[in-house]
Each structure stands twice: as C-alpha cells, then as structure tokens.
C-alpha cells in the first residue's frame, strides 16, 4: 500500500508538470486560487477569453480531452493519465469549467452515436474550446423524472425528412454562451414514456431558439430556460434510432455523474482554518469540545471521500474499472458543504449576515457557499435520486414501482387534482 506513482506514471507526471510550468497563464494563478464560490471572478480578466485561450493552447500541444482518441482532438491517454493531468493542472483546471458539459457529456455521446464525418467535424473544435456545447435535457415537467419530458419533435410535413421542434427546456447550464447542444425530445407520445424519445444535436444559432437566463436563488445566473418554436433540424442530426433517445441519454448521464462526482469540495479546510482564528466564549472555536465534535464528523467525511477517490485511482492505475464506491461523492459532499456553511455562519454570529466579499469573514466564502449549496444537492441527480442509484445498482434492491411504466405517455396524469 502506497501513494506513489508507477515509473510510467511518474514519467508522465514529469512531462505534464514541465509543460504546464512552461505554458500555463501564471498571471492568473492567484486570482484562480481565490476565486469565489460558484463563479469565476477574475477582476478585470474576461473569464471566457482566458478559458478559451488556455483550452486552445492545450489542444494545440495535444493536452486537451486527454482520454479522447487523437483523431477527434484528444490524446488517447489512459484514465490514470487523465487524473494525473487534472492533479497537475490545478488551479488552472478552473478555467475548464465552461467546457465540462461538452467534454464530459456531449462529446462522449457524439463519440458513441454520431457519424464518422460528424465526429471529425464537431469533436476537434469541441476539444479545443472553439465551440462550446450544452445539454438540453431537463424540463419543467421532467427533472428527476427526466423521461417525463414534453418537448416535441415531429416530422416536417414538407417531405424533407427534417424534424420540427417545439417546447421548452430548463436548467441548461451555459446555454447563453454555447454554440452547439445535444437535445432530447419526444417523438411519440402514444407509447410509454421511455420508448417515445429521440436524441438530436443542433446549433444553438438555429432559428426559433430563444434563451432566457434564470435568476437563481443565490442571485447568479448560470442556468437558462431555452424555448423552441418551430425549430427545424435535419434528420442527419439525429443521434441513435428514433425512439432510442432514452438509451442514448443514459450514455450522457453516466458520464455526467462521473464528471461531477470526482474531486468535490466539502469546505472543510476552509472551516478548519476559520475555527483556528475565530473566538467563542470559550476561547478559540477549535478548542471548544462541542466545535471539535462537529469538526471531526466533517473531517472524516472529507478524508473518507478523498481516500475513496484514491481507491478508485488505484483501480485505474492497475487498469481496472473503479468499484461502485465512487458513487457516494456528491451525496456526501453536497449536504456536508451545506452543513459546514451553516455552521461557519453560526460561528460568525450576527456578522455572518454580511455577504459583501470586501467586508465579510473569509471574503464571503461561507455566505456564497451557503447560498450555492442547495443547488449542489439537486443538480446532476438529487440526493434522493443518488440514494436510489446506490440502493438499486450497488446494493441490488428492487427498482421503485412505477405507476406510469406501461402507460402511453399521453395518458399519464399530469395534475394531482382531477
């Protein structure tokens, strides 16, 4: 048992480290390290331009989307090499935030279902950050119950074979700056809900698309509503067979949970630092037994996640697939972060109300964490959906009984009141 790289891994790490040292935008390092929670505020530098520039530089040198095949803009690297890259790239990895959905979810879906010509056309610019992608999945009526989505794709009546899209998506991260998207639609409402779905990809500049940012509960706007009015898509932009959209979406979502679950922060180091300098009635907070008990609980959750990750890395390092234990990441990190934020606020007492980063304790980090953490427990699978996944896929418990399972979609009740 050790934490050491194999000789091959060490050589790869050295190569990565040297390239990053010679090429990374070091002038942004301090700003990136102290960036606020849930936003990339770099005071004067346009985050979009900085992100695109770094991604392009990486792509030109063969360091973008390491796990993708070289033909599509990647490096054909092993999973463990991808992890080593991520470890070495920090803190510049924060510049990759706007590409996560494209690289982690849309790319793999295109890789699995697009034609060869399409892959060669779309994947390299996606890898290089020249085109940003988003995923048009969630809807007002289809969040956790994604297959309940209602956006319609119908064959055009002009015999062109095109599809006409009408409906509405919601919670689309980055729709307002995306160039391309993958889109799941309902093509047949007369069959049970999972069977009438079809996946497409399209340009976000296609006529008939309207994007409206959502003002979130924390005041920021990372998500959007996207409206479709008679949007026309050629049949060549269909991914998978008509009616196979659910199967295609599972490819995307599996990748979503992999990307989101890895390396999540709980806020513990920041809280510990705060407790070492904030006073309570009994002296420093960190010396108070009641505080220590809470800190210990969060400390072992944080290290537990870290070492669970190390176990997964060990499996990758041996060329094996990591076990199911990695599925706990977001389920532990999300609620922990929220608890930590609330406790950090409690320690600050009345002054904890101040969120202005110029004045607030720890630059307002805990206030931002407090206001952002509810979203962490919902996005990419709610805590409850994640518990279902662990119960069903890891522990082998029966799936929930679904009253809408064999009912044609257009016969499923949509209101609790008749």
């Amino acid at each position: 048992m050790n934490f050491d790289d194999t000789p091959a891994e060490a050589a790869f790490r050295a190569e990565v480290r040297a390239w990053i040292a010679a090429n990374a935008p070091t002038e942004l390092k301090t700003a990136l390290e102290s960036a606020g929670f849930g936003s990339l505020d770099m005071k004067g530098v346009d985050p979009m331009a900085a992100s695109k520039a770094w991604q392009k530089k990486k792509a030109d040198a063969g360091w973008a989307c390491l796990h993708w095949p070289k033909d599509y803009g990647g490096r054909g690297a092993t999973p463990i090499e991808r992890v080593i890259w991520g470890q070495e790239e920090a803190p510049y990895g924060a510049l990759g935030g706007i590409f996560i959905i494209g690289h982690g979810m849309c790319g793999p879906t295109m890789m699995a279902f697009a034609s060869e010509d399409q892959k060669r056309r779309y994947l390299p610019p996606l890898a290089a950050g020249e085109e940003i992608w988003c995923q048009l999945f969630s809807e007002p009526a289809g969040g956790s119950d994604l297959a309940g989505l209602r956006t319609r794709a119908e064959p055009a009546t002009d015999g062109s074979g095109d599809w006409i899209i009408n409906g509405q998506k919601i919670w689309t991260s980055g729709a307002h700056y995306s160039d391309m998207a993958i889109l799941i639609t309902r093509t047949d409402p007369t069959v049970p809900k999972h069977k009438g779905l079809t996946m497409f990809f399209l340009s976000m500049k296609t006529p008939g698309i309207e994007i409206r940012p959502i003002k979130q509960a924390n005041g920021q706007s990372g998500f959007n509503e996207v409206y479709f009015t008679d949007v026309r898509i050629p049949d060549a932009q269909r991914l998978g067979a008509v009616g196979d959209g659910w199967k295609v979406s599972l490819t995307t979502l599996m990748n979503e949970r992999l990307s989101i679950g890895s390396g999540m922060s709980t806020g513990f180091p920041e809280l510990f630092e705060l407790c070492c300098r904030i006073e309570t009635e009994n002296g420093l907070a960190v010396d108070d037994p009641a505080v220590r008990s809470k800190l210990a609980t969060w400390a072992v959750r944080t290290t537990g996640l870290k070492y669970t990750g190390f176990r997964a890395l060990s499996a990758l390092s041996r060329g094996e697939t990591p076990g199911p234990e990695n599925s706990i990441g977001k389920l532990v990190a999300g609620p922990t972060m929220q608890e930590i934020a609330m406790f950090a606020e409690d320690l600050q007492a009345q002054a904890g109300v101040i969120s202005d980063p110029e004045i607030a304790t720890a630059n307002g980090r805990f206030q931002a964490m407090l206001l952002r953490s509810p979203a962490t427990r919902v996005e990419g699978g709610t805590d409850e959906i994640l518990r279902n996944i662990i119960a069903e896929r890891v522990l082998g418990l029966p799936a929930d009984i679904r009253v809408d399972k064999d009912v044609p979609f257009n016969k499923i009740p949509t209101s609790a009141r008749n």
Partner: protein
Amino acid sequence: MNFEFSDDQKQMAAEARRFLAAKCPTTVVRAVLDHGLPYDQALWVGLAEMGFLGVVIPEAYGGLGLGYLELCVIAEEMGRALAPVPFSSSVFLATEFLLAAGSDAQKAAWLPRLASGGAIGTFAHAERAGAVTPKAIQLSAADGRLTGAKTAVPDGGVADFAIVTARPAGGSDARGVSLFLVDLGQPGVTRTTLQTIDPSRGHARLEFNDAVAEPLGAPGEGWSILEQVLDRAAVLTAFEQIGGADRALEMARDYALERMAFGRPIGSFQAIKHMLADMYVSATLARSNGYYGAWALSTGAAELPEAAATARVSATQAFQHCAKNNIQVHGGMGFTWAFDCHLFYRRSNLLALNLGGQSQWEDKLIARLRARNAAA
C-alpha cells in the same frame, strides 16, 4: 498509486473468512452470550493454530513475523464474525504494549505464549466512569506493588496478565503515570466478572491488593507509551468495526429483499432504500479512512496519530449506524433475542467505548489536525 491491499493480503482475508465461517457462525457467539462463558475456547485454539494470534509477532518469538496490513484484514474478518474471543485484548493491546515498551526478558517471557494462545493478555486502564485522563489514574504504585482497582477491563476475568496504568500516590499529571505488567494469577489480585452490554465479550473488575508488579517501559513514560499503543489499537479496532458494519449492512439488505409487506419487498420502498444507501455511504467512508490508518500503521508514518483518530472516528460512526439501522430495517423481528441483529448492535456499542469513547477520539483528531497545521 496503490491504495489497496495486495493479492496476498486479500487471500489471507479470504482464508480467515473461510475459517471463521466454519468455526464461528453466530451460533458460537450466541453460545458465549447465552451461557455466560468468558470466550469460546475451541475458536481460540483454532485461531492460534492458524497463526492469527501472532501475525505481527517476530518469528524469533514464535509469531508469523508479518506486517500490519495482514493483521488489518484479519481484524476485519474477526469483526465481521463477532468472534467471541480475547483477540483485541491480547493482539491489539497486550502484544502492542510488549512490542512498544517490553524488555527483552518480558518479550521472551510473554510474546511466544501470546502467539501460541497459551497466554491471554489485556490492558487495565479505567477506574471509574468518565474519560480516562491522567488525573483519573489513581491506582497506586509503590515499591513494585499495586493497590487499587480497575474497572470494565476487557477479558479481565480470563487474562493471564495485564498491562496496568498506575502512579505513585498523590499525583495527577501525565508524567506521573507508569505502566506495569501484572501477573493476574497471584493472590493479590481479585477478579469480579461484570455484567455488560455485550456479554459475548467478557469484562471484569480487577482489584489489586499489594499485588506484585514489574515496570513496563521507563517510569513516568506510561502515558506517552499508551497514547502510541492506543493509536495502533485504534486502527486495528477500526478494521474490526468495518467488518461488523459491512455484515450488518448485508443483513439489512438481505432482509429488505426477502421481507414482504403491502404486497411488495420492503426493499422497494424508498424509506428503506435510502436508509440502506446511507448505511453504504457510512461503511464506504469508514473503509476508505481505515485504509489510510492501515497505510500509516504499516509504514510507521508520521501521520499515524491523525490517521488513527480518523479511522477510529469514522469506523465507530459506521458500525453504530449500520448496526442500529439493521434493527430498524428488521422491524420487530430485529428486537427479538432469536434474530442476530442485537449481537451486532451490542458489539458496535461495546467497540465504540473500548479504547475510549467517540468524543475523546473526536477531540484527539482535531487536536492533532491543529498541531499539524500549526507546524506547517
């Protein structure tokens, strides 16, 4: 990165699991519990024959001379089987005290007998209710003789010798605490078996009346030696707890799959599924933290104090969480004497107290993290 047990170590775990499945089904645990036996002697002899009592004892002293990773995987299997034997007292504590501070003569006298199962050793520390702090040690030592009492001593009723904390009369600081090795077979020692929350593991009160004692380690070094040994024992106990937690989770999962209510398996209800998912989360975090402790213990890393407290706190949480929810999933049947759920519940709460309670370990963990941060 190789943060995993080796194939050889996994094979050793599998061997221990096969052995315990054959020699220690829960009927064996139950027999000790039902009949007020101190431990299961046949199992103890079998464990000695397998070499499991002397895993880390050097070959020169009759042990296997293997490392702590091997001992960790065996500890996990012992916890899973709820083995009703003085394993933790003899192996995690008495052996570790001798290895850490014993003289050559003491090692030669006791280690071969510990490895063969011919002698049982234990650690006698607590004197009254409450956290055992230096000032709580009042057992008096004078001229190689001990007078006073220790309470809730694990395996105190059957141990051949005990490592005992004591001090010259009157003091209260850590520097006054010394360790003594005491033969419990002498007339100056009176043992009283105690009724406990987990009768599958024996406990006793030990009264010392001018009992002959030989020093273990230097005078006044007792507290610092015991802190080191408790850290080592904490990692090993964490594996015992991890094994118990995993088994309790499996029992709950299996019952949820077979028990029908309202026309469906209860494991199809989200209230039950989510409870089980949370148990899986606790058990997984504890296992990963345990690996960290095992790494630190096996390599003698400077991080051991922090890693041991981390493993301990996490494993205590997980075993208590899984054992109590195992009863909850079983409903009324879980509260019957006939079902095994209470065996795990009892053991989880016993292990949470042996070596000091959860709040003490939480306190140690944060104190150690603080010290490291201050040093950095």
